[in-house]
C-alpha cells in the first residue's frame, strides 16, 4: 500500500483547492465589460444595456430599430430573464462599488430604487441630457431621483394589477364568471373572502388561490399606498411589522389559509408552473406583465380562452415597475443617456406593451389607443389595458426602504411555511418577527 502516502498528499492538496473554491464563491463578482474605450472593432460606440426579467426591448425589436437610426452605435442587450434580487442587484452593487463592470444603461427595479439611487456619485445626471418630467406622473419621475436631486433614472413601466382567473374552474364551483360581475362582487376584500368561502364550500378539489406570495404583495402595496405608506421596515432599519399594511396583509392571508382557500404552489416553482397548465388553482393576483409574459406560455394553447382577467379587490395597487439609469462609469454617458431616453420614451413604452405587456408609466402612452383599448385574446379578450390603467390611476408612490427586500423574503418564506404546514398559523407572527430580525441584523451595518 505504498500508494497511500502519495494519495494522501494529493488528497490534502485537493482538499485545500476545494476549500478555496468554496471560499472564493464568497468573493465572486460579475460583469464582463472588458472593452475599456467602449468601442467595437469597427469603431462604433458600443452601448451595453444590462437588464433583468423581461423589459421587452428585444421582443419589440427596439435594438435593431435604434441601430438602424444611429449608424455609429452598437446596442447590446443582455440579462433577459435574470432574477432581480438573487442575481442582478448584487452584481450591479458590486460593479458600482468597484467602478467597473456595470452596463452603459442599467435597469433598476422599484424595490431597489432607494437603495441604489442613494449615492448619486455612482450615476450620470440624466437632467444633463434632457428634462423629461412632463412624460411622467410626478411620483414616477421623483422616485427616479437621488436624495440630492440628481435625476438617476427614466421610468419604464408600472406594475398595474388585476386578478387572473380560470372561468372554467369558477363555473365548476358555482361562482360568477363574468369579469364585471366578479369585479363588483370582490370590490372589497370582505367580498373576496366571501367568494373564497363559497369556492371552498363547493369542494371541487382544486385550490382557489395559487399561494400566499402574489396576494401578499398585492395587499401590502395596496394597504400601504392607501394608508400611511409604512410596510415591514422603515428607512433606519426599525421593523414596523405592526403597521396597518403589514398586519392587514398578513392577517388576510392567514384568514384565507384558515378556510383552505390558499394552494400550496410556491411562486415560480416547478409545481406553480405545472399548475397553470393543469388547472391547479383558480385565481391569482397578476401584475400587468404576467398574463402574456408568464401565464400564457405556462398554460399553453390548450387552455386558450379559459383564463380571464378582472379588476382586483380594493382600491388601486401597484407592484413593481422599473427605471433605466446610466452609471457614471460608462465610457459614453451622453450616448447612453440618449439611448435610455429613447427606450423609455412614450412611443417605445407603447411598443413594449404591445410586445410583452409591461404597462407604461407615461400618461401619454397609457392614453394611446393601442394601450387603453387593448384586449388580450388569450384571456377571453379581457380589456387588460383598461383594467390595468384603472388600477394605477392616482395611486400614490411607495417608498421601499433599504431593508425591505430581505425582510420581504423572510415574510414570504414564513407564509409559505404556514401554508405547507411547517409553521402553525398562530406562530406565524412570532416566526416572521424572528426571521425579520435576523434579516435586518445581517443586512444592517452591525455585523
Amino acid at each position, binding site marked *: *500500500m505504498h*500508494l*497511500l502516502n502519495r*494519495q*494522501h498528499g494529493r*488528497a490534502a492538496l*485537493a*482538499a*485545500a*483547492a*476545494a*476549500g*478555496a*473554491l*468554496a*471560499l*472564493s*464563491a*464568497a*468573493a465572486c463578482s460579475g460583469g464582463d465589460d472588458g472593452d475599456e474605450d467602449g468601442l467595437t472593432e469597427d469603431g462604433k460606440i458600443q452601448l451595453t444595456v444590462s437588464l433583468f426579467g423581461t423589459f421587452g426591448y428585444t421582443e419589440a425589436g427596439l435594438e435593431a430599430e435604434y441601430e438602424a437610426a444611429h449608424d455609429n452605435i452598437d446596442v447590446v442587450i443582455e440579462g433577459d430573464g435574470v*432574477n432581480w*434580487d*438573487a442575481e442582478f442587484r*448584487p452584481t450591479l*452593487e*458590486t460593479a*458600482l*462599488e468597484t467602478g467597473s463592470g456595470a452596463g452603459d444603461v442599467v435597469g433598476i427595479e422599484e424595490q431597489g430604487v432607494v*437603495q441604489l439611487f442613494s*449615492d448619486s456619485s455612482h450615476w450620470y445626471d440624466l437632467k444633463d441630457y434632457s428634462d423629461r418630467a412632463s412624460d411622467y406622473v410626478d411620483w414616477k419621475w421623483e422616485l427616479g431621483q437621488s436624495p440630492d436631486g440628481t435625476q438617476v433614472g427614466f421610468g419604464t413601466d408600472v406594475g398595474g394589477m388585476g386578478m387572473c382567473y380560470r372561468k372554467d374552474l369558477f363555473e365548476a364551483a358555482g361562482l360568477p364568471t363574468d369579469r364585471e360581475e366578479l369585479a363588483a362582487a370582490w370590490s372589497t376584500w370582505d367580498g373576496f373572502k366571501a367568494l373564497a368561502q363559497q369556492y371552498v364550500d363547493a369542494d371541487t378539489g382544486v385550490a382557489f388561490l395559487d399561494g400566499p406570495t402574489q396576494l401578499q404583495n398585492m395587499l401590502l402595496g395596496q394597504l400601504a399606498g392607501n394608508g400611511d405608506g409604512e410596510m415591514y421596515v422603515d428607512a433606519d432599519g426599525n421593523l414596523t411589522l405592526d403597521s396597518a399594511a403589514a398586519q392587514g396583509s398578513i392577517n388576510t392571508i392567514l384568514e384565507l389559509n384558515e378556510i383552505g382557500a390558499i394552494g*400550496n*404552489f*410556491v411562486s*415560480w*416553482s*416547478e*409545481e406553480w408552473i*405545472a*399548475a397553470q397548465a*393543469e388547472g*391547479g388553482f383558480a385565481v391569482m393576483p397578476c401584475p400587468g406583465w404576467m398574463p402574456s409574459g408568464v401565464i400564457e406560455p405556462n398554460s399553453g394553447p390548450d387552455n386558450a380562452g379559459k383564463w380571464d382577467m378582472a379588476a382586483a379587490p380594493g382600491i388601486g395597487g401597484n407592484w413593481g415597475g422599473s427605471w433605466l439609469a446610466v452609471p457614471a462609469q460608462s465610457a459614453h454617458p451622453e450616448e447612453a443617456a440618449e439611448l435610455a431616453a429613447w427606450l423609455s420614451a412614450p412611443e417605445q413604452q407603447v411598443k413594449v406593451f404591445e410586445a410583452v405587456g409591461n404597462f407604461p408609466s407615461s400618461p401619454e402612452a397609457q392614453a394611446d389607443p393601442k394601450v387603453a383599448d387593448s384586449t388580450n385574446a388569450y384571456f377571453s379578450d379581457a380589456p387588460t389595458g383598461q383594467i390595468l390603467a384603472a388600477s394605477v390611476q392616482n395611486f400614490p408612490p411607495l417608498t421601499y426602504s433599504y431593508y425591505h*427586500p*430581505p425582510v420581504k*423574503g423572510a415574510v414570504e*418564506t414564513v407564509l*409559505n*411555511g404556514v401554508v*405547507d*404546514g*411547517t*409553521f402553525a398559523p398562530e406562530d406565524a407572527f412570532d416566526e416572521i418577527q424572528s426571521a425579520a430580525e*435576523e*434579516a435586518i*441584523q*445581517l*443586512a*444592517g*451595518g*452591525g*455585523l
Partner: protein
Amino acid sequence: MTTETAARSPKWRLWASKADIKATPYALVSPYFILFAVFGVFPMGYTLYASLHAWKLGGADPVFVGLDNYKFLLFDYDRFNWSVFNTLGMFVLATVPQLVVALMVANALNKRLRRPMLWRMLILAPIVTSVVAVGVIFARIWGQEYGMVNGFLELVGIGKVDWQAERWSSWIAISSMVDWRWMGYNSLIFLAAMQTIPRNLYEAATVDGASPRQQFWQITIPQLKPVLIFTVFVSSVGGMTMFVEPMMFDSGRLLGGTDGQYQTTAMVLVDILRTHGNYGVSAAAGWLLFLVIGIVAAINFLIVNRIQGNK
C-alpha cells in the same frame, strides 16, 4: 585569457546543468502553484481578512470586529447550525448508497458483457447532463401535486407526500438527484482501478476454490483501497459543498425550504452574500465550512484507511 575562459566554461556548465536538474521540475510544476496562489491562497487569505470585519456591500468602510461574525453564525444564527446538520445528513444519505451502488455497477461492468462500451457510456451520461435540466426534471419528479413519485404513491394507495415540507423527505429527494448525477462518475473510476488488478490473483484464487463473492471481498476491495480513499475524499468535499441540487430543488431560492429544511452551508454562505450583501459574515461562513470539510475528510480518511486485506 583563453586559458581562463577554458577553465571557467566547464564550471559554468556544471552549475547550469546542476541548476537544470534541480530547478526544472519546479519550473514545470509552477504553473499550477502560481494559479493556485492567485485563485486559491489569495482568496482564502482575503476571505479570512473579510471574515474578521463588519463589511457590508455598499456600506461604510470595513471595521475590525474580531470573531464577532463567527460568534453570530455559531450562536445566534440558527440557520447556520441547522445547515451544517442538513449538509452532513444529505452527505451521508447521498454518498453511502452512491459509492456502494457505484462499486456494484463497476463490478458488473468488469464482467464479460456484450457491448461493454455502450454500457459504460450510458453510465456516464448523467455527468454530461446540464445540472439545471436535472434540477427541473427532479423538481417535477418529486413535486407534490404533479410529481411522478406522488403519482405512483397514490396508485398504491399511500397518498401524496409534500416532499419539500419535511426534512427527511426533502433529503431523500435531493440525495436521489446527487446519486443520479455522480454514481456513474465513481463507478467509472472503480472500473478503471479494477482493470488494473492483476488477473493472476483471481486465477490463483479460483484454483484455490474461492467463490466470486470471496474474490470480490478478499481481492477486489483491498486492491481498490487507494481508489476508494480517493472517491470517498472527493465525494466528501462535493457533499459538504453541496449547493446546486438543493437550490434547484427550491426553484433557485437559497433558503432551502420554508424553514431551511434542506438549506446547506454553501447556500447559507451565498444567501448571506447575495440577499443581505454581507461580506464579513459570508466570509466567516466560508471559513467555518472549510473547517467542517477538513474534519469530515479526516474522519472519512481514518475510516476508509481501516479497510484491511490479506496481502
